[in-house]
């Protein structure tokens, strides 16, 4: 991840700010928009930097500690930089039986990364996930917003080709 530049200073873009303010008005209590606000930032940046808690808290009128509490609770809010594409491999019971380990092996072979790691070219981040609701097609995985079933060690390499 050496090619990713972290900055200490965090400023919401105008678009992010506008989207959060828009979202906030959908709720009686602005606090309820915490998760959406974090998703908006993640959408724009791929992940949620530390300074976002202060910036979001300021808009919603709640303490940064509350925003940070939500941001750290959910595993799908990323608190470290991630690659351009996220691979989520299901490791729940059905996929485990269905051969999720071989899928992981296929990814390991193709990309040379372990779960939790990002490729050196910053193209993929590999993450475990617990159940994609796709148990009838185990083993399953997701790449970004696309779900795939009956994946094998061989087929996974081809799938990855579609995500430059």
């Amino acid at each position, binding site marked *: 991840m050496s090619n990713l530049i972290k900055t200490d200073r965090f400023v919401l873009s105008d678009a992010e700010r506008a989207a959060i303010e828009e979202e906030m008005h959908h709720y009686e*209590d602005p606090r309820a928009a915490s998760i959406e606000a974090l998703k908006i930032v993640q959408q724009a940046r791929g992940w949620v930097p*530390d300074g976002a*808690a*202060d910036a979001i808290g300021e808009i919603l009128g709640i*303490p*940064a*500690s*509350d925003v*940070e*509490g939500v941001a*750290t*609770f*959910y*595993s799908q809010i990323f608190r470290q930089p991630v690659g351009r594409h996220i691979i989520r491999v299901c490791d729940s019971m059905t996929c485990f039986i269905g051969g999720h380990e071989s899928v992981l092996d296929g990814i390991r072979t193709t990309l040379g990364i372990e779960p939790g790691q990002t490729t050196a070219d910053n193209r993929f981040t590999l993450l475990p996930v617990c159940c994609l609701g796709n148990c009838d097609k185990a083993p399953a995985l997701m790449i970004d917003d696309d779900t795939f079933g009956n994946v094998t060690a061989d087929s996974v390499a081809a799938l990855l080709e579609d995500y430059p």
Partner: protein
Amino acid sequence: MATIHVDGKQYEVDGADNLLQACLSLGLDVPYFCWHPALGSVGACRQCAVKQYSDENDTRGRLVMSCMTPATDNSWISIDDEEAKAFRASVIEWLMINHPHDCPVCEEGGHCHLQDMTVMTGHNQRRYRFSKRTHVNQDLGPFIAHEMNRCIACYRCVRYYKDYAGGTDLGVFGAHDEVYFGRVEDGVLESEFSGNLTEVCPTGVFTDKTHSERYNRKWDMQFAPSICHGCSAGCNISPGERYGEIRRIENRFNGSVNHYFLCDRGRFGYGYVNRKDRPQRPLLQRSRLSMGIDAALDQAAGLLNRQRILGIGSPRASLESNFALRELVGAEDFYSGMAREELANVNAIRELIQHGPLPTASIRDIENHDAVFVLGEDLTQTAARIALALRQSARGKATEIAEAAGIQSWHQAAVQNIAQGALNPVFIASVDSTRLDDIAAEAVRAAPADLARLGFAVAHAIDPSAPAVDGLEADARELAGRIAEALLAARRPLLVSGASLGSRSLIDAAANIAQALKNRGKDASISMVVPEANSMGLSIMLADEPGDRSVEAALDAVVEGRYDALVILENDLYRRADSQLVDAALAAAKVVIVVDHQQTPTADKAHLLLPASSFAEGDGTLVSLEGRAQRFFQVFEPGYYNPDVLIREGWRWLHALRHTLLGKPVDWTSLDQVTAACAAVHPRLAGITEAAPDASFRIKGQKLARAPHRYSGRTAMRANISVHEPRQPQDPDSPFAFSMEGYSGAGQDRQQIPFAWSPGWNSPQAWNKFQDEVGGHLRAGDPGVRLLDGARMDVDWAQPPAAFAPAAGTWQVVPLYHLFGSEENSARAEPIQQRMPQPYVALAEAEAQRLGVTDGAMLALSLGDRQLQLPARISSELPLGVIGLPVGLPGIPPLTAASVATGIKEATR
């Protein structure tokens, strides 16, 4: 009431309680973590499981969480049931999976709720063999140490810090077994009540950092029931001592005052007791000659013999010491040691709370009021414990909403959920922003005179027969109407004001509002803040004395040559009056004798300095702002560790001096004698003898132990001086022994409890065992007696002052208070000094723009004939025409309501 059956026995309990409260109130031990008497139930930890049966014939039963189950009539439960016991043992085993085996190096050890509960459940074997999760700890500032590995995730800390105390910067992060309690990033915990985390946390995540460097176990300390001297609130404390140093201050439960919580000044401001530069032996300043007690008394008597003596007392000294000074110099020549304006204001407040139309709420009772008007006080800085109580008044709305929906008040998560942040109305009128503004329905800023006018307008809006305020702006009139409406709509409205701004018209406005509320038949209360720990006591003592007893009057009299000698008790006059006047008086006096426990600028100028005790080495009585006389007791005898230390109570010095002058042996050899003499001379203080049991009080023939029975190392304590262990110091003044010998349990009812301990309960949760019901009041009654509940009489309407209109080119100087820094003694404590602001001059944004200065720019200004240079602090809320100066910080002269600044400009560098 409800009848419940616990393990086959029948009990009568309060049906509004949950089963955990009910069992604990009965004295039955049920282990628990997340529940706390002041925080209610959330059912997070599952530790308090008991078995509940549907009726007497049910033999199977089911496990329930006792903290989440109402104690309904005809409940059948079992604590001892094998399945319930096994469940509780499992719960604690899970909680302990990631808890380190570091009790020997953990500063919670010995007063740890987790230790107590682990022993109680019988979990004594660790089966978990794997790695434990670890966390990075944070630097939370000078007060609190952080060790997250010990966390059992009970959530008490955030529930206390955020929900109860209104803090924003402590949160909970992460999920599952990696939950983290801390700040978003390292930094000082912002809440003024952060110290309570050390007692709220059931284990060693948050511990007292001020105790850390010279640490010892709770069982190795001597304690005494004491009273905080940090402000006029009168919180009860348990200071702990080892090797002649105060090591820690713990909360002491008083169900009518502070119950479970203290402010950080009170908890962490004790360091002045341990200062090495304290006067320890009588000292002739000029020759730097120190001497023994008899020589000092002879010296003093020689200096005072045939002299006309004036005595200056102190609102930070005990009634007994002030009384002894009055006896020494005579009633006519005894002065209060308070500034003229302050004394007059405190006297007006005394009159108002003793005979005014409304009773004074105790601090605990403040929480039960449902609409509050704070007039002119920045409570978080001037009487912090009241600010914490007001947060509970505001939060009372949630309980009310919940109860209307049939939700029990202890059902904390449900109560908060249904209330959605609804608060009872709190109105704050102050000169600058306050740390309570976040709960205010409306907060308004104005100069003191305009605040008073708002107060008068509120009184008029409540009762039109109260005088109206001429020329009031429409917005102020409307605000007054809204405040009046809220107070009238409330079941129990509360008015809080005080003497902090030095404005008499604010007190008059408070009196008018009180009268108006009474006229409208409201069940209302009042609470008035006075400046210091014993301001109220001194005011009562001087209530029947004619003439001006202020510091200025005293100093003028000395300068005019009406006296030869000046005896000053625990008072730094440079904090009270203009330094030129003090210099002149100290120079004019032929003899200056100072009795104090700190090396103050006044003590520096004494001919003879006598070393007085602080609250830690002496006994005495204070009267708090509610008129509650409370006794503080000596924690330790410094002479035991070092016989060269000749610290004595102020009253002992002054009485001995008087009798040396008279050529008589001393009459008062114990505290009870001086307290009784004081009560006899001052009928208004007659109640003080009842403030605490006298020295002859015994339980089962025993004195009460100051130290826990496990106290260790006593034999070796003085081995560096002599291997022969001397007899323990004897205490003629109190029923307490300087020893672990004596009564220390909870079985027998008593008010004065040096430290909370009961078999199996070493943590502060041991207070359960002393209470009539958990979180209620002490079984023996809460300590102290109220002196000022006199006949209630109507007051004559006061007239509002003119609107604030500063003369061109002048600014009224308003005092701005700081919890850390404005109080003289705690400001000498090193941890407090780390939190003190730098001296500054505060001014409104518009004023700064006009002067063309930015935040931090150095400003020059004239205050009378004094020139000050201070960095600017720009306030967005301070009104125009005033500047604020931080009370008591270095270089800031004493302020009065008439202090006016001129010639403010940017200083040329």
